[in-house]
């Protein structure tokens, strides 16, 4: 029992959770409205929820030692699709729109996965290309139009801005609940289902995984499909939250998602990390954004902070990995 507790405490995820809580406390001390006002509490939980979804998808891909740069473009494209569906098919049921968005995201992810798995080209290059392509398609489809909030049904938009309960500490926005459910599902899949665990194996040592007989190609494709589907889902929710969708929606999100995952303990080299970590990382990143101006730092410095955090995270990973390696060697010497 204590060993389990000890392991939880030493886990990376706990570390950044503590950091997150610390930042919230500091900001709230300086300006209590950060958490005590109804808006403040709601925004605290709501704003990171979208990036969280994308970060979870990115984490799944990074665990397999790949990377998906096209997530931002997928979010933009599905957000626009959402708006278009509501405009062009009046009275369409929101559930259908969700399905359509997730499906589109999954297809876009499938394209990525197929190219990476079959053409054996590094995911960096493929997703770099599809990032351009999907964004270009988005812009040319949208033209100079944009989806306006008034085009979307108010019930749908309430999903993006409303909460269960009301008031600070006593309410949770719908979006956050949805994000948490998806997060739990993804975490369960990665930990408990064989397919999920195989992703870790593939990320740790692709050659060994193949020799061992794991269906590497299939798993990689599934990872990219998951990433695309999650980004698609996030795109539909984007439309619900912001109401207005321009053709540059979601641009830059790939960096935030990958940054969140890396900070959350998902190693770029693959095979390590959890989606919980990525989720906390997303929360940390976006909460820092909002806390900076309160602490008095111009929010222009936000990206510098993000960069420093990412570097800190990967250095920490490396230091820990080296230490673990030495410990294992020492252990082996002992048991000789």
């Amino acid at each position, binding site marked *: 029992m204590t060993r389990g507790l000890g392991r939880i405490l030493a886990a990376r995820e706990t570390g950044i959770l503590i950091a997150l809580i610390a930042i919230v406390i500091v900001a709230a001390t300086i300006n209590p*409205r950060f958490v005590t006002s109804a*808006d403040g509490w709601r925004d605290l939980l709501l704003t990171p929820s979208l990036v969280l979804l994308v970060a979870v998808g990115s984490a799944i891909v990074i665990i397999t030692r790949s990377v998906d740069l096209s997530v931002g473009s997928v979010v933009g494209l599905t957000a626009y699709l959402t708006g278009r569906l509501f405009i062009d098919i009046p009275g369409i049921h929101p559930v259908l729109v969700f399905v359509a968005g997730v499906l589109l995201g999954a297809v876009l992810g499938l394209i990525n996965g197929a190219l990476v798995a079959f053409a054996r080209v590094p995911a960096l290059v493929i997703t770099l290309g599809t990032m351009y392509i999907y964004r270009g398609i988005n*812009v040319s489809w949208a033209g100079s139009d*944009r989806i306006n909030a008034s085009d979307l049904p108010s019930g749908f938009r309430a999903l993006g801005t409303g909460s269960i309960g009301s008031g600070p500490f006593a309410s949770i926005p719908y979006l956050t609940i949805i994000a948490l459910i998806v997060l739990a599902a993804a975490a369960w899949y990665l930990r408990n289902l064989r397919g999920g665990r195989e992703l870790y194996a593939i990320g740790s040592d692709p050659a060994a995984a193949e020799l061992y007989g794991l269906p590497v190609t299939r798993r990689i494709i599934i990872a990219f499909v998951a990433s695309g589907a999650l980004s698609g889902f996030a795109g539909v929710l984007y439309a619900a939250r*912001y109401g*207005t969708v321009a053709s*540059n929606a979601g641009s830059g999100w790939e960096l935030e998602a990958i940054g969140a995952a890396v900070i959350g303990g998902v190693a770029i080299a693959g095979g390590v990390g959890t989606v919980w970590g990525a989720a906390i990382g997303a929360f940390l990143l976006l909460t820092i954004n909002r806390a900076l101006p309160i602490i008095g730092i111009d929010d222009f410095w936000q990206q510098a902070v993000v960069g420093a955090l990412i570097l800190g995270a990967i250095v920490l990973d490396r230091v820990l990995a080296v230490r673990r390696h030495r410990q294992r060697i020492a252990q082996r010497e002992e048991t000789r």
Partner: protein
Amino acid sequence: MMFALGKKRSALGAAALLASVAMIATGCAANAGGGGGEGGDGATITFLPKNLGNPYFDTSSAGGERAAEEIGAVFDEIGPSEATPTSQVEFIQTAAQQGTDALVVSANDPSAICDALDEARSAGTKIVTFDSDTDPECRDLFINQADAEGIAKVQVDLIAEQIGDAGQIAILSAAANATNQNAWIELMEEELKANHPDIELVSVVYGDDDDQKSFDQTAALLQTYPELKGIVSPTTVGIAAAARYLSTSEFKGKVALTGLGTPNQMREYVEDGTVTAFALWNPEDLGYLAAYAADALISGDITGEPGDTFEAGDLGEYEVGEDGVVLLGDPFVFDAENIADFDF
């Protein structure tokens, strides 16, 4: 591997490269893509707003297109997706290459595009700025929607009225370098100091004419300044985003919001009480006038000197003022009573 042959391959490669470059360089004796010709039939007038996908500029371009049809000129609209100082440069260059007769620009920065505009002018293109000016030396005419002081004053008057002439206010602007924004903000600050000593301007934030950014900036403002009583947003994208945020927040009705907005975007919020009154002019008239002015330049009717006059279709006759500025008219205040009468 093939290291030893590297040099030979490089040489061959370099030769092929040189051949391509030489082809372009030598083959361009003719085609000095000139612009400038007679106005009217077939003249090309190209609109280059701050960014595309902005309802305000959609309306002004519609006005420009209408004018072009009446004149018999060919209308085109090009532009970047983001309103940054340098994003317009490539479009100016393309227009210059294509030999457009006139370029009608709303500038994201007073001097960043000057060099590109000068190059276009030497290729024969007439440059008319509208809505947001550049340095006067790099354009032929500036079509100003209203007197800058008038624009500043009307917004200050509106917010003062709505918050009882005392309290904290903030400004949600567009891009930090936009000429018109900075001119108005400066004048607003002067007006506040002179006539409204009890109103304190606590912050100016920038939404970059990006909806999501303006939305998030509004949220941040309300968080950071709990005593805030009013927000002024002299940009149609900013005020629309701020209104949307306010209408679902606990501050609806408690924090006043005014600025420059389009009736269509603001109607919902005037009706639900988030916004009481705001101002603007008619952007369609602005684009219409700008196109007519451009055509007058192309055909040589005017040269941009103060005192020149020209006909602007339905709007009547206009005269060029000092510094090559043409004034459209006065700002107009929209509120619950009259907002139903407009459609733009």
